[in-house]
């Protein structure tokens, strides 16, 4: 988060997104649990916790859409200021 380049900032948000997804799925994992698919030899009460997986499934998609919006804003800023550097963006041109 200390970089000047705006693409690196977008990448850092992506990495934060990944780490939160891994944390959610890890919190719902059960040792020797079963897959979330029903079959004859699966005990339905000995499964991995489904709620974190449902939340993460939606979080992945929303993360993709938000990152696309961020990249579009970055390209728009480049078209206006001709740089990716966020400190040089709002300087007055001489």
């Amino acid at each position, binding site marked *: 988060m*200390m970089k*000047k380049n705006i*693409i690196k900032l977008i990448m850092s948000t992506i990495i934060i997104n990944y780490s939160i997804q891994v944390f959610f799925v890890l*919190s719902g994992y059960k040792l020797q649990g079963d897959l*979330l698919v*029903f079959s004859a030899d699966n005990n339905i009460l000995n499964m991995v916790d489904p709620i974190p997986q*449902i939340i993460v499934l939606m979080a992945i*998609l929303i993360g993709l859409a938000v990152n696309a919006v961020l990249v579009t804003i970055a390209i728009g800023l480049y078209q206006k200021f001709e740089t990716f550097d966020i400190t040089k963006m709002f300087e007055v041109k001489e």
Partner: protein
Amino acid sequence: MTELVVLLIVMIIGAVVALEIKDLLSSVVIIGALGLCLSVGFVLLKAPDLAMVQLVVELILMVILIRATVIEDKHDNNKKRENAYFFVVISSLVVFLSAAFFIIRKLPIFGKPIFRISYAYLKDLNINALGSNILASLMLDWRVFDVFGCMIALFVAVICVLLLVKGKRKI
């Protein structure tokens, strides 16, 4: 469990390298490798649906990022900010870690989730009238309002992109 630990350590190292490397294109490629590692990790954590979605989302995200990186920037890319920002980052990191230290102690042990909310739902499921994929049937029966909110969020994001682009040039 050892393979999962190795995978997570590789992911942490990869995240640090991706942010510190000088070339922008190679850092995008490392982000892609991180996503693939995450997808393998989801398979190890017994979440095949998530692995499938993550694998494909990663491809689309990489194409979008490469689209932004092919632009040549004239200025130097890899400079850091002044020292004043450094103290802000360090202090926020200290606050975050100390909060995490107290919260993680309250969490249940790894491998034994609390499993109280979904237990109430799974207990009185009618198994005969159920598709095999329990995740989908839970998601679209019990948490269907969440899915609806997710779809609205996606819709709003697409409209944002359309507005941002359409001001510049008509397609």
